[in-house]
Each structure stands twice: as structure tokens, then as C-alpha cells.
């Protein structure tokens, strides 16, 4: 059969979100690949112009609906950098606990989609059941299940509910038990290992040259985690280790994310136990100064950056968003060439693509 271009087109059950992947196939082997994004562009950076600093927070929630606390927290960090606002320590600890819970929920959702693509519907239902535990805690904390609208410029919206500490510690214990169960379910079956080991190799130099960040970078052996290398918020006082894995295949990316969930449980325990008493919110100035602000954060998918320009009024002049998946997906050809068509699912699933933040 001659080489032909196949469109794993915008409407497809495998691709989470709306993007197009064109692969050039010779029989069963992949010879070339071209990802095409942009089908979900909603004009978020334009929507932000003309809204006040507080009105922007629900909009940044909807950037990546899989892990929305990360983006509203990033926006608040950026705006606080611009205005020079000091956040009280209790608010910082609450934010860290909520973000790490959001990280666990986001990784669990990744695992659900990944295992369904590989054919194991069991993974979907078990992980969603466990994700409910964390979503319920975040719901009691902020009032909503998916788009929380919880961080504010100058702190968090309101204080934690009663029983927050007890529920959170129970959830962390439950999660560690369940992670052992997942190891049984996934790594205990030879079929899963056959589909993941030595598939989709991404070498260290390629990853660094292409600007890949987050779990795919750490799975290729590079020890780079923004929470340790450029710490923000209250992370210098917490004790944890970024996770790396020496091979660069799909199994390594899976392993890195599972171990990140362990580390997140550790961080949540420390944050909840070290939380001081006091104020949780400071009044932020209404008018932003003339100037610029920058914020960088470790998203569950990579490194997210926001850059804001203020012009003296109470509405920002420009907000620029750098999304991690937009850069990581350009490494797709390097990972796909040479493998079979049936591996596309495993490889692209390992990148955890959330198209909401790619296309903004």
C-alpha cells in the first residue's frame, strides 16, 4: 500500500478535546505526523480586556477546565505581582492545599481517559470514583465542582469550612490505599505493560530542545520542577521531592504521574497541619498601577506563565497566557515516528492534552 495521510480528525472518540492529528502511514508504521490545533479558540485574551481585575477570575477558571484552580491561582499571583499586594500566610497555605488536591484530581482524570483509550474501562470508573472524594472536599471549600472561582487578589474568597482538616487527612489516607490498588490493576497485568514499555521514546536532548515541560520532561530524566527551582507561594517551607524517571517511554510518563500523586498527598498533609490562624484575605487596590506583572506556576501539565500589563485604571490592558500543552504537542512527531498506528493512542494520551488551555 502506498503511503497515505490519515486524519484523526477533529471529531474523534480518542482525542480529548477538539484537535486534529494528521499521520502519514506506510502500511501500519507511522512515517510523519502533524498536529493541528485551534478548533477550540474562544478568544479568552480578548474577553479579559474590558473587565475589572476581579471579574477576570471566573474567566481564567475556564481556561483548562480539568485543573481550573491552577489557572485562577496563576492569575492571582500575576496580579499580586503587578500591584505589590502581600498575601497573609493562612491564605497561602489554603491555596497550596487546594492546588495540590486539584493536581491529584487532574491526574486521576488523566488516568481515567488514558486507561479507557487503552481498552480498560475499569480504570475510568475506579478513578472517577476516587476523584469524587477530592471534588467533594473542594466543593465544600468553594461552592462549585469544576470551576471554583476561589482565589482572589489578596488571598482566598472565604475561610475553610469546619472539618476541613479531618476530611483532607482522611482523603489522603484513602488515596494512598487506592494508589496501591491501581498498581495492581495496571502494572500487574502484562497486557498493560506490553502496550506501554518501549513505546513513544522521547530522548532527553529532544525534550529539552523542543521546550517540553512537566511530566513528559521529568519522565525523560531531566530534574526540573518549578516548585523547587523557582519557588513561589509557600513551597520553600514544604518538604517534597520532584519525581523523575530515566527512560522516556509511555511507562515512564505513567509512573511519574502516579508518583506525583504520592508526593501531593505528602504536601497536603504538611500544608494542612502547618496552617496558621489569622486573616485569609486582604483588600486589594482597585486600580492597578502602570506597569507589568509576571507569574509562573507548575501546572499538572507543565509550566504555565501569565503576563499582565496594567495602565492605571481598574481594568487590565493586556493579559498574555502561555500554555504548556501548546508547546509540548510540537514534540509529537519525534515521539510518533517509527511506531505503529495503534500506539498513537497511548503516546498522545500520555501527554495529557487539555485543549481548553491550548487554544485559549
Amino acid at each position, binding site marked *: 500500500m502506498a503511503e497515505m495521510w490519515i486524519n484523526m480528525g477533529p471529531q474523534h*472518540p480518542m482525542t480529548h478535546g477538539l484537535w486534529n492529528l494528521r499521520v502519514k502511514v506506510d502500511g501500519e508504521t507511522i512515517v510523519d505526523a502533524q498536529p493541528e490545533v485551534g478548533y477550540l479558540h474562544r478568544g479568552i485574551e480578548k474577553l479579559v480586556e474590558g473587565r475589572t481585575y476581579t471579574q477576570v477570575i471566573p474567566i481564567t477558571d475556564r481556561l483548562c477546565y480539568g485543573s481550573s484552580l491552577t489557572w485562577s491561582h496563576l492569575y492571582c499571583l500575576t496580579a499580586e505581582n503587578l500591584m505589590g499586594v502581600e498575601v497573609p500566610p493562612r491564605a497561602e497555605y489554603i491555596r497550596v492545599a487546594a492546588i495540590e488536591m486539584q493536581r491529584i484530581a487532574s491526574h486521576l482524570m488523566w488516568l481515567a481517559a488514558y486507561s479507557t*483509550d487503552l*481498552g480498560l474501562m475499569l480504570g475510568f470508573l475506579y478513578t472517577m470514583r476516587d476523584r469524587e472524594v477530592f471534588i467533594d472536599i473542594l466543593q465544600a471549600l468553594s461552592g462549585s465542582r469544576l470551576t471554583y472561582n476561589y482565589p482572589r487578589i489578596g488571598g482566598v474568597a472565604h475561610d475553610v469550612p469546619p472539618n476541613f482538616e479531618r476530611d483532607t487527612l482522611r482523603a489522603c489516607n484513602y488515596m494512598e490505599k487506592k494508589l496501591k490498588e491501581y498498581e495492581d490493576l495496571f502494572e500487574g497485568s502484562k*497486557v498493560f505493560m*506490553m*502496550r506501554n514499555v518501549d513505546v513513544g521514546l522521547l530522548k532527553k536532548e529532544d525534550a529539552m530542545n523542543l521546550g517540553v515541560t512537566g511530566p513528559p520532561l521529568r519522565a525523560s530524566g531531566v530534574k526540573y520542577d518549578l516548585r523547587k527551582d523557582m519557588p513561589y507561594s509557600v513551597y520553600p517551607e514544604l518538604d517534597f521531592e520532584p519525581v523523575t524517571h530515566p527512560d522516556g517511554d509511555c511507562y515512564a510518563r505513567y509512573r511519574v504521574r502516579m508518583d506525583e500523586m504520592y508526593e501531593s498527598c505528602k504536601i497536603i498533609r504538611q500544608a494542612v497541619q502547618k496552617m496558621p490562624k489569622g486573616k485569609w484575605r486582604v483588600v486589594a487596590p482597585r486600580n492597578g498601577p502602570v506597569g507589568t506583572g509576571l507569574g509562573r506556576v507548575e501546572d499538572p501539565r507543565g509550566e504555565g506563565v501569565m503576563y499582565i500589563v496594567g495602565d492605571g485604571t481598574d481594568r487590565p490592558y493586556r493579559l498574555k497566557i502561555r500554555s504548556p500543552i501548546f508547546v509540548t504537542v510540537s514534540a509529537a512527531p519525534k515521539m510518533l515516528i517509527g511506531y505503529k*498506528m495503534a*500506539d498513537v493512542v497511548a503516546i498522545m494520551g500520555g501527554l495529557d492534552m487539555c485543549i481548553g488551555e491550548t487554544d485559549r
Partner: protein
Amino acid sequence: MNLFDFCYGLIHWLVDLINNIWYRLGDWLPWWFGDFFTGVGDFARSHGHIAVMAILLEVLIIIIIALINVLNFIWLDRKFMGRMFDFYGPYYVGYRIGGWLQNLADGIKLFVKEIITPAKADKLGFLLAPIIYVGSSFLALATIPLGRQFYIGTNADPLSTGVEASALIAFAFFAIAPFSILIAGWSSNNKYTLIGGMRSAAQMMSYEIPMLLTVASVFLMAGSFGFMGIVDAQHDIWFGIPLFIGLVTFIICLAAEVEIQPFDLPEAEAELVEGWTTEYCGMRFGLFMMTGYLRGYIGGALATALFLGGWHGPAFLPDPIWFLIKAYIVFVLIEWARWSLPRVRVDQILNIGWKRLLPMAILNLMIAVLLKTAGWF
């Protein structure tokens, strides 16, 4: 009592009932109608006519049993999956009987859908593929006896063992299916179904061979090609116990033939939408799905008859019930493995088929030869 005797008696009683009215009608009417009625009545009472009707009734009974079992399998599949995945299976439709009527609701839904044929599809192949698929599976079903007295056949010789070589015929019909899948995949005029059809044909073909080798070892041990002979040879000990490797190989090959996870790459793949059945709508798709489960039932019945002792069991339940219980146990085992394992990639499937199962089947054959020549069977 033989199934044939039962059906014969039933039809005879029915014909007598109708003939009461028929003859009276013939006597009442004038001669040019009356002779006609009497002639038809006499024809209906003849042995040949009742025998043919009895055979048709037998066929109907076996088909109804098979289809009800298929409905049960689908229901059990969904309930079982539900409890393993921590939710309820079908719950509301048929609330009191656990949701069994969900099958009927799904069937009605499939009937009322609009049937579309793609414009550029090869019309003859498109229409023929479901017919061959379903027809060959039902033909394979027809040769399997459910009990010592429960099979399609006449009682011409009461001590006969049914059709000679019935197991060979069953496997022959069972193996026509890849042919129809290729026709379906190719005539839909779609890149993806073509790939799906080719993959499916490759998979099924490569798993036929270990299956037939395993079955050959059973034929060797039993000394006959027919089901009656095989099951009778198991009255001391089931063949599954000395030929345990054969049993495991047979069940794995069965899962690959019926296209059940973990081997369902041609069908429910995440990248090929529905595989080779993509372009079929409405009840045509329903036929494919039903035949998938029917082949699962046939495979379970074959495994029971060949390895698990057929209908032998303690005498408090009749023979067909034991047969069905064992077929259900095989089915439950396959289902349990189905929902616990991810899908295997296509070249790995072929790997498993040729490199792992074929040596196991040959080992099994050698064990059978050893046991037979040692005189234990």
C-alpha cells in the same frame, strides 16, 4: 424420551385437533369442495408430513433456547460489568426482574432506526455480509446436542449417536465467519472499515489453528468425531482435567474468535470508531452484535461438550440444564477476564497466537497421544 418423539407427539395431537374440524367441513360441503378438504386432511395425517413438521418444531425450539440464552448473556454481561465497576447494571426497565427487559427496549430502538446504505458501497457484498455471518453461526449451532435425548434429528435408530462427525461440521461452520467480516469491511467503501476488516480476518485466522489442534487432541482421546461419542467418552473423568493446557488454550482462542476484550482491536477500537461494522445502521448492526454474543454462546457450548463433560452431572437436574450451567460458567470466566484487561495491540495479538498458543496446543496434542497410547483412555 427423545426430542423427536416429543415433537412428533405434539404435532400429531395438533393435526388431529385440526382434522376434527376439517373433516366435518369436508362432509358438509358439496362434493367438488369436499374431496379437496378430505384430501388435504389425509395428507396432513401422513407420517412424512408430521415428521417434517416435527423436525421444524425441533429447530424452532433449539433456536428459541439459543436466542433466550443470548439475551441472558447480554443481560448478565451488563450486570456483571456493573457490579465489578461499582455501579448497577440495567436497573429501571423491568425493575422487578433486575432490568432484564432492557434488552427488548434496545432491540425495539434498533428496529425503528433508519437504514442507510452508503452510495458508493458494493451493494451485493453489503447485503450479503450479515446474512453469511448470521447464517453460518446458526448452522454451527444446529449440530450441538444439549442432552442425551435433546438434539435435532430423527429417531430412526434409537441407539445412534446423532450425526457422525457433528463436531467437525460445527467447527467448519464456525470458521466461515472471517470470510463475511472481510466482505463487510471491504464493501463499505471506507478506509477505516477496510483496515478493521483486514485486522479481524488476520486475527481470526491465526487463532483458528491452535483451536483446531486442541480440538484434534480431544478427538484423539475420544475416538470419535461426533458430540455424542465425545461426551459419552467423558463419563469417568472430564477431558478438562488431563488436558488442562488444552482447556486454557481453547478458552483463549475462543475469546479471540468472538472478539471479546482483550482481543477486540478490530471492533471497539478507540481510533477506528466501530471497526468493520461502522457503516451498518439499525437492525443490521443489531444482527452483528447479537451474532457476536451467539458465537460466545456457541463457543461456551463447544467448550462444555469437549472439555467439561457435556451434560454429565448428578441426576437431580435434567441433562440440558447441566449443559447450560456449565456453558454459563465458561461465559462468566471469559467475562471476568474481559473487564479486567486492556486491549492488546494487533501485532501483539498475532504474536500471542503464533508464538505462545501454538506450542501450547502442540504440547497438549502430545499429552493426548501419550495418554491414549498408554491405554488409560
